[in-house]
């Protein structure tokens, strides 16, 4: 029998993406097959590439005195979207926790001038801007804007951050740390990360082609997603609508290389297996995997190998796609945005294809989704994230009936 105090459910999802604000907007955009990746030249002098930028949102103007960074603002907008229908005066809401992931955080507000004469840079207005530098500030911004006073923390484990925030929030709920937790990730485009990935030659100048044999790298994007997690008991007590059940979660590390994934994908495969063990489901019961799928040569082959290992024994190949082909790699937000899309897939039965996947990696155990949206009943789906430093996270979502 289901223990409703130990069953973690998702009762709301807030999103700000290149498609606009809201999960419906994101879902409609993906279902329409619209790609938000576009040529970009203005992010720093000399940069020419492809990114996905969020436009038309109430972000602080350049040089604004606001202490919230662009990353903070994206997070706050997503969180506000998530709780738009909530009773924000209730005790349960006020005592909520916040676990937000970010890798960029307040780097968006800092420029190279800080390295020349920090004190002078701070006195020129940098002090206020630098206040948003610590990664913890993203969680603070969300909590303060929403008037939430429960435990709050930030998670920063590179590109697995957003998914890990959700996993840690689930642990916290099991511990009774808060009645509900807003968990997700947020990251904004900024010269620091663009320059970093560019220096590593990890960027595809054209729109990325995850899992294609001719893939050349990733494209950076930006956005935020925030999930409201609570126990089924808590959700039932306030008569909340359950969007999905977080059936399983797991975190592992490759312990292989500071940036490269382990080629056989052993750490990621172990992570997926552990999440299935927690969910008490077999690999044959997972109907879809929303992949990490960055489009870099090393990631995608490691990931394909991980699927072969984790889903060995299935009767049919596991359907897999990368939605980064639509709006790029949103770093610390990626895992949360992809969790949101995985929930959408479970609820709608729509399996999103990878764009521009014409010549997939040969992987007999994987059914690479491409072309048209596939529709099928989907009781269970998995979202997979991996990142620099070898961090892996897998989340399994099921339909609202626990």
């Amino acid at each position: 029998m289901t223990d409703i105090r130990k069953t973690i459910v998702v009762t709301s999802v807030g999103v700000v993406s290149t498609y606009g604000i809201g999960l419906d907007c994101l879902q409609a955009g993906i279902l329409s097959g619209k790609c938000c990746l576009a040529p970009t030249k203005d992010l720093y002098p000399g940069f020419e590439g492809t990114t996905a930028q969020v436009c038309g949102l109430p972000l602080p103007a350049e040089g604004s005195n606001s202490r919230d960074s662009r990353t903070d603002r994206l997070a706050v907008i997503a969180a506000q979207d998530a709780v738009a229908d909530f009773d924000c005066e209730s005790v349960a809401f006020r005592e909520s926790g916040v676990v937000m992931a970010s890798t960029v955080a307040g780097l968006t507000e800092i420029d190279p001038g800080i390295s020349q004469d920090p004190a002078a840079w701070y006195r020129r207005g940098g002090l206020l801007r630098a206040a948003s530098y610590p990664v913890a500030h993203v969680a603070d911004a969300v909590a303060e804007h929403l008037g939430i006073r429960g435990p709050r923390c930030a998670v920063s484990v590179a590109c697995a951050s957003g998914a890990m925030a959700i996993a840690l929030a689930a642990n916290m709920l099991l511990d009774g740390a808060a009645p509900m937790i807003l968990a997700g990730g947020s990251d904004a485009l900024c010269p620091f990360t663009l320059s970093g990935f560019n220096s590593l030659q990890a960027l595809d100048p054209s729109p990325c082609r995850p899992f294609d044999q001719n893939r050349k790298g990733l494209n950076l994007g930006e956005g935020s997603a925030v999930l409201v997690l609570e126990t089924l008991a808590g959700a039932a007590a306030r008569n909340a609508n359950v969007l999905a059940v977080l059936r399983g979660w797991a975190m592992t590390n490759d312990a292989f290389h500071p940036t490269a994934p382990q080629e056989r994908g052993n750490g990621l495969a172990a992570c997926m297996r552990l999440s299935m063990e927690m969910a008490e489901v077999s690999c044959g019961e997972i109907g879809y995997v929303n992949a990490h799928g960055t489009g870099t040569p090393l990631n995608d082959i490691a990931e394909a190998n991980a699927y072969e290992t984790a889903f060995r024994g299935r009767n049919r190949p596991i359907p897999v796609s990368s939605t980064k082909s639509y709006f790029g790699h949103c770093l610390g937000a990626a895992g949360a945005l992809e969790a949101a899309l995985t929930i959408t897939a479970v609820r709608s039965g729509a399996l999103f294809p990878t764009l521009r996947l014409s010549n997939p990696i040969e992987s007999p155990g994987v059914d690479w989704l491409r072309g048209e949206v596939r529709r099928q009943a989907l009781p269970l789906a998995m979202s997979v994230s991996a990142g620099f430093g070898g961090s892996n996270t897998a989340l399994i979502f099921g339909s609202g009936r626990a």
Partner: protein
Amino acid sequence: MTPNLPTITGIGSVSPYGPLAGLIPQCPLEPSAITAWTTAGLRRAFLVKPFRPASVVPGLKTRRLDRLSAWALVASFLALKDAGTELSQMDRSRVAVVFAIGFGCVELTEAFYQSAAANGWSGTDPSTFPETLANAPASHVALFHDLRGPNITVGSKGFAGESALIQAASLLRHGQADLAIVLAGGTLTRAVYEWYEVADLLSPACYNSEPLPEGGGFVPSEGVAALVLEPAGRLEVRSYAHLSSGRWAAGGQPVETIRQMLGGSVPSLTICAGNGAPCATSSTTALARELTGHGAAIVPPQAVAAGLADTSALLHLILALSSRPSSGQALLLGTSGESGFAALLLELP
């Protein structure tokens, strides 16, 4: 005792006291003058004296790493050594690393900005970028020790150390790891120090050679503290403390919440983990007095640990344990802002 109660079995640190396994010998420590960059007159801080990591950890290579990563490697090695942990006898996929950060790898972040200032954003150094990531120290710890369990880096204003301890204990409690290395710390750089200075957060003791005054700002510090945490049921070695429970929140009613956690008992010792802000010392100690009355022992925030700001809790705890307190319940307590708090209840053997 509950068999799964997370227990601290090993301590390691790289701090102004030097790289040490186990408890820190009790000795007074004064801030030292900053020489790593040009300052306008005397500027002092609690600094880690330069040392060669390979002299502590044989074969360790740290040349391209941020000092935070290098210290994390040394501190984790010392903590495991202190715990007597034979990793070769363990399933390393069941060993977690949880790292608490404040500013993270600021040294190489500044270096990356310097390369951008010198060469433009198109000419930055590719070897530096990955080492600027907040999770670089934790991932180096995993890589060095071949630890394939959860690898988590957290930040929390005022309570990053406490948050890491609570998250690590949660991993053990839920069977997601058999052992966790919990670390917390930071490095001092020019940009960080001058940030404190321009924000007017520094103690007068940063500007002269007088002994530390009471209150009135803080003296920045640096270092990494590490604890080995494992379930009590597996213990065959000494334990420093058992972690009974923990709560933290950014607001609400700290006294009520902590008293609820204590379940009617009054800890014989309260360890105040000041977080660096000028008001922290008094507010934490005041909360401790309100919770435990005037009869119970209260260890006020230690300047050398408080200088670690958000990541101070682990070093505060180590320093308190180093004074060899008598057995009983102890409360590790931190405050931030008007009503933010973190409280961890410990059982001292």
